[in-house]
C-alpha cells in the first residue's frame, strides 16, 4: 500500500452475495456497515432478507442432484482446486482476515494457511469417508448387507461469529465434501472474507448453487431457513444459545438434522465429526446365492 500513486483514486470493492453461481445484491436492496476491530469503516455488505434465503435454497436444491451424484473422486478434485485458487489469492485473504479480526499479519497468515490446508484435508476425505463409516454388515442369512453413507441434502450452515475465515472453511468444507449443498450465513460482524470466498468458489469448478453465501443479521436469515421445509439439515455453530434453541424448535417441524453449537478451537485437528454430521446411512440387502463347488457363497 506504500507505493500508491497519490493522484490515483482507489477502486472500492462492492461486496455481493454468492447465490446460484452468481453475485447478486440483496433482493431487499439493503446493505449494512462492516467495520474493522477498531470500528473503522471497511465496506458495506449486503443485508440479506428472507427472500434471499429462499432463493439460495432454490439454488442449492437445484445443484444437489449433480453434486451428490458426482463421483467422490471428482468432488475431491474440486475441493483441492478451491485450495489452489485460495493459494493464489492468499494475500487478499490475509489482509481481509487481519482487518476483520484485528490480528497481526503473521497470525492472520497462519489462519489463512490453516484454512487452505483444511480444504486439502477435506478434499482427501471425499473418497474415504464411505469406507470409514460404511461397510459390510455380518447378517444371519445368505445376504450381502452393505451400509453406505449418503448426503443429507440441502444444509444451512451458520458460520462461526468469531473466526471469519478458518472457522467458516472448517464448517463449510465438510458439508460439501460429502455431497451436500450448502446455504452459508456468514459471520454477522465479519462477513467480508466469506463474501470473497464466493469469488474463489466461482472459479474453482464448483458447480453454481453448491455453496451459497449470504451476509446479514444471522437471526433474521436463519429463522426462515430453520423453518424451511426444503432444507434438510442445519448447523447452528454461529448461533448463540438462545437463538440456537429457537432455531432447533423451528427445525424440528420438518425433522431436520441439527448440529448443535459447541466450543471449538478451529486450529485443532477437526476429526470426522463434522463430516458425519450430515450423512444418512443407506443399507441394502442382496442375496448371495451359492455359486462355488467349494460352498463359498461368493
Amino acid at each position: 500500500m506504500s507505493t500508491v500513486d497519490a493522484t490515483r483514486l482507489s477502486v472500492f470493492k462492492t461486496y455481493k452475495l454468492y447465490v446460484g453461481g452468481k453475485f447478486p445484491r440483496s433482493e431487499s436492496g439493503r446493505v449494512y456497515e462492516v467495520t474493522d476491530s477498531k470500528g473503522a469503516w471497511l465496506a458495506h455488505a449486503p443485508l440479506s432478507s428472507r427472500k434471499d434465503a429462499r432463493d439460495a435454497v432454490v439454488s442449492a436444491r437445484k445443484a444437489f442432484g449433480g453434486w451428490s451424484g458426482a463421483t467422490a473422486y471428482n468432488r475431491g478434485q474440486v475441493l483441492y482446486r478451491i485450495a489452489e485458487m485460495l493459494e493464489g489469492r492468499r494475500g487478499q485473504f490475509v489482509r481481509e482476515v487481519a482487518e476483520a479480526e484485528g490480528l497481526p499479519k503473521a497470525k492472520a497468515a497462519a489462519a489463512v494457511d490453516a484454512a487452505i490446508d483444511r480444504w486439502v484435508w477435506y478434499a482427501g476425505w471425499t473418497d474415504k469417508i464411505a469406507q470409514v463409516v460404511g461397510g459390510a454388515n455380518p447378517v444371519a442369512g445368505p445376504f450381502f448387507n452393505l451400509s453406505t453413507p449418503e448426503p443429507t441434502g440441502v444444509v444451512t450452515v451458520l458460520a462461526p461469529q468469531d473466526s471469519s475465515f478458518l472457522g467458516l472453511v472448517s464448517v463449510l468444507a465438510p458439508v460439501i465434501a460429502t455431497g451436500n449443498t450448502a446455504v452459508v450465513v456468514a459471520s454477522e460482524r465479519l462477513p467480508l472474507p466469506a463474501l470473497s470466498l464466493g469469488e474463489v468458489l466461482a472459479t474453482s469448478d464448483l458447480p453454481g448453487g453448491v455453496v451459497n453465501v449470504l451476509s446479514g443479521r444471522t437471526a433474521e436469515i436463519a429463522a426462515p431457513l430453520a423453518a424451511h421445509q426444503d432444507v434438510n439439515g442445519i448447523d447452528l455453530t454461529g448461533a448463540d444459545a438462545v437463538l440456537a434453541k429457537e432455531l432447533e424448535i423451528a427445525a424440528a417441524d420438518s425433522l431436520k438434522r441439527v448440529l448443535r453449537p459447541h466450543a471449538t478451537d478451529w486450529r485443532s485437528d477437526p476429526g470426522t465429526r463434522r463430516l458425519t454430521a450430515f450423512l444418512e446411512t443407506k443399507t441394502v440387502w442382496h442375496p448371495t446365492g451359492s455359486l462355488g463347488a467349494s460352498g463359498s457363497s461368493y
Partner: protein
Amino acid sequence: MPTITPAFADVTASDSALRRFLHGLPGVDAVGLEARAGSLGTRSIKTTAKAYAIDLAISMIDLTTLEGADTPGKVRALAAKALRPDPTDRTTPATAAVCVYSDMAETAVAALAGSGVKVASVATAFPAGRASLAVKLADTRDAVAAGADEIDMVIDRGAFLAGHYLKVYEEIRAVKEAAGAARLKVIFETGELSTYDNIRRASWLGMIAGADFIKTSTGKVGVNATPANTLLMLEAVRDFRAQTGVQVGVKPAGGIRTSKDAVKFLVLVNETVGADWLDSHWFRFGASSLLNDLLMQRQKLSTGRYSGPDYVTVD
C-alpha cells in the same frame, strides 16, 4: 348460441373478403405491446390479494397431461389431484378442468363424474394439426362421444400462413359443429405464427368462426404463452365483445410455471378486459407444473414457512 355473428356474414362470404377484413385490422405496435405487458408484470400483489390470486389461479387451471406415455392410471391420478389439489388443506379449490388426449377422455370423465371439474380433450390431430378434415372431425366426435365437456382444437397453421384463411375458418366451423354442446377452444400455436399481426388476425378469425375460447399454444413448441401474446389476445376478445356482444374466453398455455407468472397473467386480465373475465368460465391456464408451485405458495401463506417439493404430489 348462434355460431356466427350476422355482422360478419359478408366478411366470410369469400376468401378475398376474409383476407381483406383480416389484413384491414390495425397493425400491432410490437414495442408498445411488450412494454405494456412488461409494465403490468411489475405490479406487486401481496398478502390478501395474493391469497385471492393464488386461489383464483388454482381454480382456473386446466391440469394437463399430453404425453405419449399417458396411462389410464396417470389420468386417474391427475383427476384425483384436480379434485383435491392439496389433500392436507381441504380449503384449496379444485382446478377448472383436466386436459387429456381424446382416447383418455373416457377415463377422465369416469374419474371426475359429478364433481364439477370439466374434462377437456385435445382433438383435430393435436399438436401438429396435419391431417385431413375427415380425420379431425372423427377425432372431435370421438372426444365428444367419450363425454368431454370441452374440445381443444388446433388450427391448420400451414393453411393460415399460406393465406388460406377461409379454409381455416371453415375447418373451425366444422369442428364447432362436430363438438356440439362442448365448448370449443381454438389453439393458434402463437409460437408458429411469426408475427403479432398474425396473432391478432388468428384471434379474430377464430372468434368469427365461433370459438368459445382462444388459446395461445399447444405447449409442444419452443415459444408458448407469453405475457405479450396473451395481452394481444385479451385485447382481441375485449374488442370483439364491444363490437358483437359475444364474450370469448382466453387460455394461455405452456411455459407458465411459477405463481409469480400466473399472478402476472391475472393482472393482465384485470387491467385489459376487467373482472368479467376473472372467472374460470372465461380464463384458464393450460399448465401442469404450475399447480405445484401455487400449492407451495399457498402453504407458505397459511403456515408462514417456506414449503418444498416434498410436500406436494409428483405427477
